[in-house]
């Protein structure tokens, strides 16, 4: 027998509150398994165990605050015969259980449902009820095809954007439901994704000069906006630097198949949608521009397609037109990176010992630390900068 104790999660930690157990008596555990969620002043932390064995008994109950070093559970270490109890039959989660479940990242807790039935996590079931989503219509992407809360949220978001609203009008959108989806998605992002943030200032003079020259000889229908340059640069940089384009699913990074750039579009009635432009890496600037005009127009009139709402592999948000200088965005789960752009402003720029004024834009990266780190993120931003210095290549 050994004791599993409240760990010290930083030198300044004295107490921790057990938020939830991820295991129950009789569960087999192996080194590295997350067995509990503990709340500290730094937030909710997933606590791992560093031995192999079987949980004998849980000593501390959820909600209890205990000092560092207190015994949380008794573990029967391997080497001893341990009778593993059969898993109890799945029962519908109680309100309280569901409420606790909400504190858990949706990627955990493989559901224990009877074979032959769609496996649905309790949190997913609760979300489906809240959002009015029919579970039979949801495609599961979790372990063994199980339906996760994120699948339900995606289905709800797709429902919002799908052309079920009255034609040519976004007024039929249920903004309250959309707000709930945004709340659920963003809360999940902030709960699960260890974001890191990087910022850099990019000289846009070459890009803007090139655009002005191009636009002066283009008809209005072929006009280019600088945001197309930015989105293309993001897509190409994401091809160059791995770990930015894709998803975090079931505890691992899965690279996206294609670079589908989600574009955050704020709806004037309130709410936010994040439809994706498909295959931006393979599109010419003209094709991208055409897609952007079409996508924004359809977003405004409530004609988005469900694939656009579920396929994004990386997101771009541009708040420059709102006068914002820098955006430190929230990653859209299960994506692993979000690129933000502020407004283009003339700033002093020193080059070759001379100071001049140049149009500059602040680009930021919100990265998922489970997949990449600041070094990789820095390479990504540098690649973007390099691409924007050669606009004719975009």
């Amino acid at each position, binding site marked *: 027998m050994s004791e599993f104790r409240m760990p010290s999660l930083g030198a300044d930690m004295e107490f921790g509150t057990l938020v939830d157990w991820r295991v129950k008596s009789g569960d087999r555990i192996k080194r590295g398994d997350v067995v509990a969620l503990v709340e500290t002043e730094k937030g909710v932390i997933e606590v791992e165990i560093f031995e192999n064995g079987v949980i004998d008994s849980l000593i501390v109950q959820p909600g209890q605050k205990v000092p560092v070093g207190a015994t949380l559970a008794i573990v029967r270490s391997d080497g001893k015969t341990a009778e593993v109890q059969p898993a109890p039959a799945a029962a519908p989660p109680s309100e309280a259980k569901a409420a606790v479940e909400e504190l858990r990242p949706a990627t955990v807790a493989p559901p224990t449902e009877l074979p032959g039935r769609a496996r649905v996590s309790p949190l997913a079931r609760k979300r489906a009820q809240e959002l009015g989503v029919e579970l039979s219509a949801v495609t599961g992407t979790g372990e063994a095809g199980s339906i996760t809360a994120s699948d339900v949220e995606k289905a709800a978001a797709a429902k919002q954007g799908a052309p079920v609203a009255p034609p040519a*009008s976004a007024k039929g959108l249920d903004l309250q439901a959309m707000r709930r989806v945004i709340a659920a998605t963003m809360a999940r992002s902030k709960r699960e994704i260890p974001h890191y943030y990087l910022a850099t200032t990019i000289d846009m003079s070459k890009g803007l000069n090139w655009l002005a020259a191009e636009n*002066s000889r283009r008809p*209005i229908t072929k006009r280019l906006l600088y*945001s197309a340059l930015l989105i293309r640069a993001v897509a190409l940089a994401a091809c160059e630097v791995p770990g930015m384009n894709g998803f975090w699913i079931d505890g691992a990074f899965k690279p996206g198949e294609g670079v589908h750039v989600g574009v955050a579009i*704020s709806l004037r009635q309130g709410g936010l949608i994040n439809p994706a432009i498909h295959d931006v890496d393979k599109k010419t600037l003209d094709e991208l521009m055409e897609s952007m*005009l079409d996508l*924004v*127009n359809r977003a*405004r*009139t409530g004609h988005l397609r469900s694939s656009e709402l579920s396929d994004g592999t990386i997101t771009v948000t541009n708040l420059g037109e709102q006068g914002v200088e820098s955006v430190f965005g929230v990653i859209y789960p299960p994506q692993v990176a979000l690129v933000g752009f502020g407004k283009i402003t003339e700033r002093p720029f020193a080059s070759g010992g001379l100071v001049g004024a140049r149009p500059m834009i602040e680009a930021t990266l919100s990265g998922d630390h489970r997949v990449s780190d600041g070094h990789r993120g820095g390479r990504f931003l540098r690649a973007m900068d390099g691409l924007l210095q050669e606009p004719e290549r975009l």
Partner: protein
Amino acid sequence: MRESEIRQIVREALSNVAPEVDLDAIDPAKNLRDQIDIDSVDFLNFVIGLHKELGIEIPDADVPKLGTLNGCVAYLQSRMKGS
């Protein structure tokens, strides 16, 4: 084409990119983008809509003249007379 007809076309083009906006609440002498929250993509869609409806080519350098409803009407009228 009469001014009132052009004004109606401008209103329709705007309504296509911003269906939820109450056009009657817009001051035709004030900058559109200050009054309704349209971004550069919406604005380009609006200008392309005017071009498609009236068949007038609108050079990039002229786009700033389309900042207000009155400006749009005046510009389009002058272009139609000139063509």
